[in-house]
């Protein structure tokens, strides 16, 4: 299915199109955060604690408008959300891509070689999947400590097994297809069949899983940050921003949690809408 056909498939569903447009907008905002954000929330020199907890629409001490208010550190919420969106997306997609690469390699190796290699890889994946993702991530972070690289590692560790399983199942089916038999009949080298014939045909279901997984990775990162185990407070992701405002919710300072929460919600919903539609389009059984 070509990119053009895919786009057409999206256009047939208003909901999916809305999801795709929203996702594109959020991506654009995250990418352009450094340019469009009124303030650099990571630059502690720009922050003024006297600006703390300003409601939406107030002006900072510097005269700049805090459209969505400020948090207890005096950070402009809009800027913090834009930067938070960036870091959430970065960690979500980064961990997904890494996990995808690892899972793909392991899964296709298992399917191609079979035997004890297959058994070993898949049993490890089974054990991995039998524990709740959050538990594994918590344990890993407790061992390794905090930091964006650590959380990336933790997210990869909990995700790779999904890909390994998906790709193995697909590869087992595709391996039995006649075009693989034809390639063998043409005496093509094994690695060539694996890379050029088998692998590309195992990708569509993976892309679907990946889209949905980005959303759950972002959600998991937010959860971990909310629990105080994720990113440092100096580089707040969306989850940490929500956690920051949590204690002020009951005192009526809703904006500190609400706006990052909304941003997170929109991001995850749009990713899921896109993922669902991709699954519908790429899975011939659902056509």
């Amino acid at each position, binding site marked *: 299915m070509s990119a053009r056909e895919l786009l057409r498939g999206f256009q047939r569903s208003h909901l999916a199109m809305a999801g795709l447009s929203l996702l594109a907008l959020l991506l654009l905002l995250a990418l352009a955060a450094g340019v469009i954000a009124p303030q650099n929330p990571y630059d502690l020199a720009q922050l003024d604690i006297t600006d703390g907890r300003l409601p939406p629409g107030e002006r900072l001490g510097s005269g700049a408008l805090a459209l969505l208010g400020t948090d207890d550190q005096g950070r402009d919420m809009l800027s913090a959300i834009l930067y938070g969106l960036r870091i959430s997306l970065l960690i979500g997609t980064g961990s997904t891509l890494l996990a995808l690469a690892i899972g793909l390699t392991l899964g296709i190796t298992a399917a*191609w*070689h*079979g*035997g004890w290699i297959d058994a070993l890889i898949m049993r490890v994946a089974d054990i991995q999947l039998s524990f709740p993702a959050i538990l594994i991530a918590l344990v890993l972070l407790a061992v390794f400590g905090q930091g964006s690289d650590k959380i990336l590692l933790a997210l990869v560790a909990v995700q790779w097994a999904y890909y390994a399983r998906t790709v193995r199942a697909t590869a087992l089916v595709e*391996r039995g*297809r*006649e*075009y693989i*038999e*034809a*390639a*063998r*009949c*043409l*005496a*093509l*080298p*094994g690695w*060539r069949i694996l890379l*050029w*014939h088998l692998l*590309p*045909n195992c990708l569509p279901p993976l892309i679907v899983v990946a889209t949905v997984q980005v959303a759950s990775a972002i959600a998991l990162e937010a959860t971990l940050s909310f629990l105080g185990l994720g990113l440092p407070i100096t580089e707040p992701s969306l989850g940490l921003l929500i956690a920051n405002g949590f204690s002020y919710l009951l005192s009526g300072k809703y904006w500190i949690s609400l706006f990052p929460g909304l941003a997170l919600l929109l991001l995850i919903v749009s990713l899921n809408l896109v993922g669902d539609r991709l699954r519908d389009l790429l899975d011939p059984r659902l056509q």
Partner: protein
Amino acid sequence: MTAAANQNHSISAPLLQLQEVSLRYGDKSKISFKSIGYDKYSGPAVDQVSLQLAAGETLGLVGESGCGKSTLGRIAAGLLLPDSGQRLWCGEDVRQLDAAAQRRARLDVQLIFQNSHAALNPRLRSEQLIGEAPVVHGLIRASERRDWVIQLLQRVGLDASHIDRYPHQFSGGQRARLGIARALAVQPRLLICDEAVAALDVSVQAQVINLLLSLRAEFGLSMLFISHDLDVVRHLSDRVLVMHAGQIVESGATESVYHQPQHAYTRSLLESIPRLARI
């Protein structure tokens, strides 16, 4: 001296020879491709089958579903290794040959599949689909690929403009032609057609049969034509083998098998074909 004797030997030997090959359910199918070799074989069985195919000859293999004819076809193609018995190509066991000769021997036998959809990698355009193997094996240079593929496309009745299309952009009949072009691209001597025209509509089936007939004449191809359709087999084959439950129950020149079937199973098969009264 020995070389000359060998030469003589391979000239007089039949192109392909299977000697009492067997492959049974649950046997370890040592697929001649080691990385897939771990499965237990789970297809229909083949039991002590022998056959010979001379150069330029077309051998028909008929039988009903599950009789083992496709399995036998894959053993003949060298894709499945029998767990007993021998497969000889030009009188020699291919696995004893040196690498270059082994590769040539593998390219000499090509399969044409029934399901033209599953048999073509959906992610490759015609150019790569057909042109990949000849370039990999050094039959042509990469720079010659496009011309080579165009020539083949035209030979099988497709158009040069089809070279950048993906398999799903073709009709069933065109995909069958594409599969034939892919096989021809490595200059084989034997085509094993496994129900190659079974999935096609009658009007298209006739086109593909005619194509196979003309290619056979032009390139002096041998064929093993596997089908459940007795009429199609009769039209194409010099000799026929009738297979039932993993064994060859009858063999002989096509017309004599069709006119004087010896085995009861062959008779019941022949009686079962619906006949069209012709003017």
